[in-house]
């Protein structure tokens, strides 16, 4: 090998991932090339530092924790009706829209046409014959004309 090998070739050489023929070719070149030998040494130096890194360990058994999390996630699974899960069927935006429409519809049912609305009735409350907290709904229903 007259020219320097590709850096990928040197890297694979360090990792022992070259075929016998290519390995031999790289070794022949290394015996003659200072730059490639220096590059190889740097790669090996890096590897040596990796090897010297402390071996990190969890330090305790993770299995019980994982089991607890699995149990919790099973308990937290949404209720299914007749085998169908409502959140699965409806996306969130659709669920919110349906809830708002249902709320408006139910509200409209509760509102009787012609009844006095809140702010207006409060304004007229000062003319009400029944004081606040009174049990009578009006003159006519509380007292008969004869008794007055």
């Amino acid at each position, binding site marked *: 090998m007259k020219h320097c090998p590709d850096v990928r070739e*040197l890297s694979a050489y360090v990792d022992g991932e070259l075929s016998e023929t290519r390995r031999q070719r790289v070794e022949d070149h290394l015996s003659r090339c200072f730059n490639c030998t220096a590059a190889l040494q740097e*790669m090996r130096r890096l590897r040596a530092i990796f090897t010297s*890194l402390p071996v990190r360990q969890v330090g305790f058994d993770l299995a019980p924790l994982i089991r607890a999390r699995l149990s919790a996630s099973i308990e937290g699974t949404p209720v299914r009706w007749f085998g169908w899960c409502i959140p699965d069927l409806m996306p969130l935006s659709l669920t919110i829209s349906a809830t708002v429409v249902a709320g408006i519809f139910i509200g409209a049912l509760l509102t009787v046409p012609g009844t006095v609305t809140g702010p207006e009735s409060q304004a007229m409350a000062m003319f009400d014959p029944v004081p606040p907290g009174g049990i009578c709904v009006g003159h006519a229903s509380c007292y008969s004309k004869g008794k007055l």
Partner: protein
Amino acid sequence: MPACVNEPSDTEYAERAQKGDWESFSVLVRRHQDRVYRFVLGMMRCREDALELTQEVFLRAFRALPSWRSDALFSTWLFRIAANVAIDNLRRRKLATYVSFDECEDFVAHTPGPEELAEAGERGRLLESALQRLPPEYREVLLLREIEEMSYSEIAQVLRIREGTVKSRISRARGLLLQLYLRQCGEL
């Protein structure tokens, strides 16, 4: 932790776990938790994140067990999940503050100097710091190669990329890591 001679293999335990045997899955957790933890810790920044994500890896593995096939090594399959979990998490948190690809240059030879007298602990710390600045795609191949000592073929299976890609990615990752490391050491 390698399996003892008389102990059932990962495949046997995984097959039992597929049938709902929790104890078999617990054995697999105990066997692989440190390896997965080391890999995830290398990808993330702190121990708490790594512990949390290690659990996440096993949770996903348990849920995905029905899709595991015995023709694939359980450890390879597990590391695929670990790599996905780590990369997903880094993307989500946008912690991937690494050197841009533009800065990646081919490996430049460097003559070793007398600075090699530095203590191993300090060198390791500097290396880990430099490792954190690598793009996650580079970090994961280096960790799988240098820490887990996987072959190019295994790494290709874990990451679902071609062996040629593994080869070039490892080479570029080494070059970049070396530059960052030497810069931190003040040797560049």
